[in-house]
């Protein structure tokens, strides 16, 4: 630490005249130099869009998820009615296909982005951060792909 200070502070007696009207005081380098992993200015709006997406998808998910729970668990005889035939009947309609697809994508991206934020906030080491995020993105991608595949290729005559 002491060597850093002596490097940063231009003391009198060095070869270059340290003081002048332009340079009236010793130059002290800013101590908060950012690491190489965090570029000074990315100049992208990714974080802003991420923040906006969380708010908007949250509002939509309230409607989608609560509606989903109400229909599946409360209306028309409750949870007992849910079976293969019930799902087959629902997915015959493009409306419910879209509902479930939207719910799947929004919930996975919303939850995934939320966990990404939690990892960014709480993972202390860069390595941990990378591994946790890799695990998270794999899980999100896997679930989205599998779910979409099922919704689009669902065959009611499978048995």
């Amino acid at each position, binding site marked *: 630490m002491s060597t850093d200070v002596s490097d940063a502070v231009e003391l009198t007696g060095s070869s270059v005249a340290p003081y002048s009207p332009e340079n009236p005081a010793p130059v002290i380098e*800013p*101590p*908060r130099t*950012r*690491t190489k992993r*965090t570029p*000074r*200015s*990315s*100049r992208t*709006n*990714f*974080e*802003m869009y*991420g*923040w*906006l997406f969380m708010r908007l998808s949250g509002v939509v998910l309230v409607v989608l998820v609560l509606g989903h729970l109400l229909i599946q668990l409360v209306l028309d005889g409750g949870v007992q009615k849910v079976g293969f035939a019930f799902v087959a009947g629902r997915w015959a309609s493009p409306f419910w296909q879209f509902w479930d697809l939207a719910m799947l994508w929004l919930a996975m991206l919303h939850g995934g982005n939320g966990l990404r934020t939690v990892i*960014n*906030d*709480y993972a*202390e080491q860069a390595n941990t951060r990378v591994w946790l995020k890799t695990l998270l993105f794999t899980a999100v991608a896997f679930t989205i792909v599998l779910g979409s595949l099922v919704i689009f290729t669902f065959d009611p005559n499978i048995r």
Partner: protein
Amino acid sequence: MSTPNSPTLDKHSSALDAAEASASHLITVTLRIRRFNPEVSDHAEWVDYQLPIDPKERVLDALHKIKWEIDGTLTFRRSCAHGVCGSDAVRINGRNRLACKTLIKDINPEKPITVEPIKGLTVLKDLVVDMDPFFQAYRDVMPFLITKGNEPTRERLQSAEDRERFDDTTKCILCAACTSSCPVFWNDGQYFGPAAIVNAHRFIFDSRDEGGEQRLEILNDKDGVWRCRTTFNCTDACPRGIEVTKAIQEVKRALITRRF
């Protein structure tokens, strides 16, 4: 001129008598201070100090009393000692406050009063932390007037309404109580922190300033305003009563309305 029976001396001794008589107001408090001396030990430890003090005095007075009368090695920062310079932000009973604005009677003197350095910054000794990262974040948002064109030959005039727009954030004294109460800052010192955003807000919403776009671009960064989780710790901690979280939200809103 000065005889043993001079009125000055009489007055003095009566003042002393009065002071001794009022000593009954004093109560005994225990200050539990987080002490750290890197030249002695790698570890910080809690040390208790018992002292008689008037409950209407401040925690800073208690710290002074300890340093001047009990243990001269106690190290802490203070300059003006009246809530203006922002030097003596410490964590008292788990809350960030200015030691010079916290009265003993307001923080339950029956129990030991814990005093520790503010969190998230490197402790150098006892209650003194390294403030460099904090001030670097402050410098990074360019907290000065930026204008284009020729300088006017008179003052830059501003309406009362325009001045009101950023009045709240002009109150900041840079004590770091907000930034060091922020859980995001505790975990990642790369986050600008509430204080830097408050001081950017002060210029972004100043009608005379023309550097708002640059400051917004800086705060749009990965470590900028989007890391705020609106936990309101900063608003609770601010000894000047600045609505810090509101200011951060206003910067977010400015960023969004600028894009759309």
